[in-house]
């Protein structure tokens, strides 16, 4: 065999191994049997709390939906990011256009692992990176509650992403690097029950870190600057620092935070704005105990200076 032929065979072999490795490393990983067994019998009443805590309607109701229309999860809200435009899909109970035909296992794999029933990776614009930390039983409750919501026909438009982000398979690698169901903040001293409950709500269903934590180029959260504030995913604005570090909310008392989550007003009676308006309207539906827990957690996390660059001062004319 000539040297050229041998080289060619070698090159093909390397490519085959590489492709095989890529295929293996990017395969969707579903929940294990232990997690699936922990789903249990979902309870719709308890699930309503998870529905608002997780903010499902904020992206999956139609844009600008109010009142009962918030429970019609037809999708359609757009998230315009540097990777392209994500469009929230229909997650109503319609069996064809929504998720009405999904089993609770299908639902849990989507919510906690970002894997569709067809075995495709979902994009982390759907914050399963946070929902991965949810208790399986809470996810089953959420499923039970969503079963009580209306079926709405009609598919939302597809995402419109640029290469290479439009290759779903590549997300498998990304998940190996960044998908974790462990807590972000480990406390040195044993935290109070309220702090633990707040950590669960904020890091899991509440997915606060998805907007309030700066991201790497890859889109992964910079957990060393957890909740330090970040450039907004859309537009020119910022999402504020909610740690006690410089520029943050260290001068807010725990009650101030609770009041903000409940009423939408800061200690100075400035109001909630931007995408937080939707979040606050979800938070006001939680119990006072839940809001107090989130506030206790925010008071307990490490302080960081702002996670976004300082404002460019433009000379005023």
């Amino acid at each position, binding site marked *: 065999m000539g040297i050229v032929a041998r080289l060619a065979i070698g090159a093909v072999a390397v490519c085959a191994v590489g492709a095989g490795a890529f295929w293996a490393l990017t395969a969707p990983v579903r929940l294990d049997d232990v997690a699936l067994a922990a789903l249990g019998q979902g309870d719709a009443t308890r699930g309503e709390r998870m529905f608002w805590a997780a903010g499902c309607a904020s992206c999956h109701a139609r844009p600008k939906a109010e009142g009962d229309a918030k429970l019609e999860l037809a999708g359609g809200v757009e998230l315009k990011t540097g990777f392209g435009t994500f469009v929230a899909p229909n997650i109503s109970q319609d069996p064809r256009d929504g998720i009405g035909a999904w089993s609770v296992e299908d639902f849990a794999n989507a919510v906690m692992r970002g894997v569709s029933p067809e075995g495709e990776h979902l994009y982390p614009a759907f914050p399963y990176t946070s929902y991965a930390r949810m208790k399986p039983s809470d996810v089953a409750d959420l499923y039970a509650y969503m079963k009580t919501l209306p079926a709405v026909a009609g598919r939302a438009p597809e995402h419109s992403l640029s290469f290479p982000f439009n290759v779903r398979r590549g997300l498998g690698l990304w998940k190996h690097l960044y998908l974790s169901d462990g807590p972000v903040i480990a406390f040195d001293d044993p935290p109070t029950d309220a702090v633990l409950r707040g950590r669960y709500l904020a890091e899991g269903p509440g997915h606060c870190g998805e907007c309030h934590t700066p991201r790497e180029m890859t889109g992964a959260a910079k957990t060393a600057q957890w909740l330090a504030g970040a450039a907004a995913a859309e*537009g*020119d604005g910022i999402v504020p620092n909610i740690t006690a570090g410089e520029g943050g909310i260290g001068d807010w008392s725990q009650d101030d935070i609770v*009041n903000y989550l409940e*009423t939408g*007003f800061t200690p100075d009676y400035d*109001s909630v704005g931007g*995408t937080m308006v939707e979040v606050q309207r979800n938070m006001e539906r939680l119990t006072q105990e839940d809001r107090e827990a989130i506030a206790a957690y925010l008071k307990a996390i490490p302080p960081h200076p702002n996670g976004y660059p300082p*404002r460019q001062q433009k000379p005023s004319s």
Partner: protein
Amino acid sequence: MKRLVLALSALALAGTAAFADPIAERQAIMKANGKALKSIAGIAKGAEPFDADVVMAALKTLNDDAQKIDVAKLFPEGTETGGDTTASPKIWEDMEGFQKAVEKFRTDTAAAVAASPADLDAFKAEFGKVSQNCGSCHETFRIKKG
């Protein structure tokens, strides 16, 4: 008399100066709104006792301020940026929507003053309607800046 004329001129000048800087002017209005709201928020939450006079004073301030929001004068072209404005570009992209939001705030504050709430429940209803405008408008038309 001379003094009075001087004082009036000074006031007039101050007025002109304020409008020469629409960004500062609209920010002052918003600050005043926040202050008025703060004075009655405790009552609305039930943390402070109902006081009809305090409530009316604040509602009147909110209404006066709301009527002062002349969109053409306070948000003219050229004030999209500058100073430390946190006005969203969406104001100028959707002037009609913004006008509508301002109009709703004016209507709601005027209605609250006209209702002249005499007890806590009546007040809470008006407070809810008025304060709801803050977040609704800021959701679209304000951005946070670093």
